[in-house]
């Protein structure tokens, strides 16, 4: 049986600080763009695989692979998490277009728009 998307999101966010959960609630209620940004940043920071990259300050132009030490498996894990969080399917083609944190946020915004258009 398909799971309620918002309860799945709550589950996958359970380990995050309260402000991330609050951001998700704000995003869910009114599509707050700042809240979406906070969620993507929290996910990108959380899924960094390499401890060596821990001191990097994350901005819109931070590159996942070069700056944060992401490898292909870590990217796949991050994408899996975002798919659960936003109840969407992110394709390989979508991922190929993502190099920076800003690219990823824009990709999610585009996918959400496609989803609401389809609905």
């Amino acid at each position, binding site marked *: 049986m398909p799971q309620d998307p918002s309860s799945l999101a709550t589950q996958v966010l359970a380990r995050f600080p309260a402000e991330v959960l609050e951001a998700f609630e704000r995003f869910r209620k009114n599509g707050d763009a700042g809240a979406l940004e906070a969620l993507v940043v929290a996910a990108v920071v959380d899924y960094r695989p*390499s*401890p060596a990259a821990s001191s990097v300050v994350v901005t819109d132009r931070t590159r996942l692979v070069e700056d944060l030490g992401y490898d292909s*498996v*870590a990217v*796949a894990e991050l*994408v899996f998490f975002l798919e659960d969080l936003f109840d969407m*399917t992110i394709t390989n083609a979508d991922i190929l277009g993502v190099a920076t944190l800003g690219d990823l946020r824009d990709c999610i915004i585009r996918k959400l728009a496609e989803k609401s258009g389809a609905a």
Partner: protein
Amino acid sequence: MNPVVTGVGFITPIGNDRVSVERSLREGRHGIEAVEFLENPEISVKVAGTVKGFRVDSTSWRDWSWPQEFAIPKDVLRGLAPHGVYAICAVEQALAHAGLGARDVAMNAETGLYCASAGSAMLLHHNLAKTRVARGMRGNPLGVVSSIAGTLNFTLAAHFQVTGAVCGFVSACASSSHALGYAIDDLRLGRLKRVIVVGAEELNADSVLPFAHMRALSLQSDPRWASRPFDTARDGFVAAGGAVALVVETRACAEERGARVLAETAGWGQAADGYSIAASHPEGAGLKRAMARALADARVAASDIDHVSAHATSTPVGDSAEAIAIGELFTAGGFRPKVAATKGLTGHALSMSGVMQAAFGVLSIDRGFIPGNPHLDVACPESRGLDLPRATVDTAPVRILSNSSGFGGSNVCHVLAAP
């Protein structure tokens, strides 16, 4: 020249380092505790050989904890199964014991890694269930590498940067004895100079309960008596988890770097029963042949063996079969090596049991003792001709025969000798 063992590492129900393992073996202290699976008190399995000092029962690695002295970076942890955490801790201990650092084995084309585990039924089930909920549209990207049989090879090889050879062995409860056997062969053949051999198993509802459904587990609730190999009152095995690692090297490799040799891996043999999916041949035919082959490979006679480390898991059929096989090979010829079944203390750790017994044998040789059978009360008729000391014997064995048997009638035996 036979290979030698230069390091051992233990995460076991009876201790998480070689000092506490030796103390438990010498003092006959068991590591079996009351357990409740799936928060269901109705489940008939009441005890297990638990691993202490770790919390790896969650399906998320983010919830796990382990003893602080072992460093497991996040990028490694995310791909591990629960028993992979045990395995890394055991390998780190074994390397340190052998006087080796991570840099000595990393990117060293002469060092191999031979592993045995059943994989993680818990994570496999969890990840596939999630995929079903998503109607096949997505799944955990690390679901495969963290859960299938082989997970130890994948994750440990990457973590320790092993470039010599990496291999996994799946022959149920003989798996890690196979891993050690083929490590010995590759060292003898000059293919490698050093092999890290590791066996590991997790202990949770998904790893244990399927054996209850086969009616293979003890249903006794007293941890002191549930695992009692060779006893007339035995009623099944007690499941256990953990990890054990050995560093096995060519003698030349060990001597060149001045390493202390703990024991020699003098020979090994294997043979199959050709009899049943799960049960042993009732007279231990394959096991007897495997023991004889191990002795032949080590170029020793039955009279040269002073201690047999029995596979005996406390199941009615298996222990009888092994007792008969040992009796035919030794007692019938007038030889009575001291026989001990350490699963009375540890429970049965499945794939890792062979390497665990081998590591116990290394400790026995190096530290000068033979474990007893403290849980044995009334020996079963088949084992009455065997010398089954109840208490620890304070004598160093010179040659040990260590037995393993697995589903499908796979039997693997090793001879370990004083260096």
